[in-house]
């Protein structure tokens, strides 16, 4: 039952990222909303799943999944932002 707290806080951050993607209009603002809020949501959600199902069942692969997503989500965000910057996408005033 204690696992519900990080699960629902993680879902709250995931919903913040999703609604921010709908709200903003330019690619950089969308990357800001999605890339920042999703990492915290993913980490809290997977920690809640570890607390729910126990360490013996799925703990090691969950830790591997947390570390992998924690390293590669900023890499993907940076690749998209650099691609948009090289192709001269600028903010409209």
């Amino acid at each position, binding site marked *: 039952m204690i696992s*519900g707290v990080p*699960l*629902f806080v993680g*879902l709250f951050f*995931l*919903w913040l*990222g*999703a*609604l921010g*993607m*709908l709200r903003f209009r330019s*690619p950089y603002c*969308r*990357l800001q909303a*999605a890339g920042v809020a*999703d990492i915290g949501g*993913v980490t809290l*959600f*997977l920690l809640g*799943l570890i607390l*729910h*199902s126990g360490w013996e*069942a*799925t703990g090691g*692969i*969950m830790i*591997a*999944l947390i570390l*992998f*997503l924690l390293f*590669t*989500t900023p*890499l*993907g*965000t940076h*690749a*998209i932002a*650099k*691609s*948009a910057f*090289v*192709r001269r*996408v600028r903010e409209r005033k």
Partner: protein
Amino acid sequence: MSVYVEVLLGLSAIPPLLVLWRGPSLWDRLTGAASLNLRVTLFLAAHAAFSGHGLLLDVALAYAILGFLGTVLLARFGERGER
């Protein structure tokens, strides 16, 4: 509780799908695709933890790796500008 978590996670995949559908530029669509990959990975992990099928967790890890490779490859493709 597990039903609510899975339904809320599945519904939070709808806004990235909308952005992927009607994004004006390539980079909006790439942002939506990366976010959608993340949510599919989380849904696979949640279903593996709630239903007890441990094999789905390996599928989630492989999906995360392939989603990251697809995002980076499409971003490099859009950087060079070959449509």
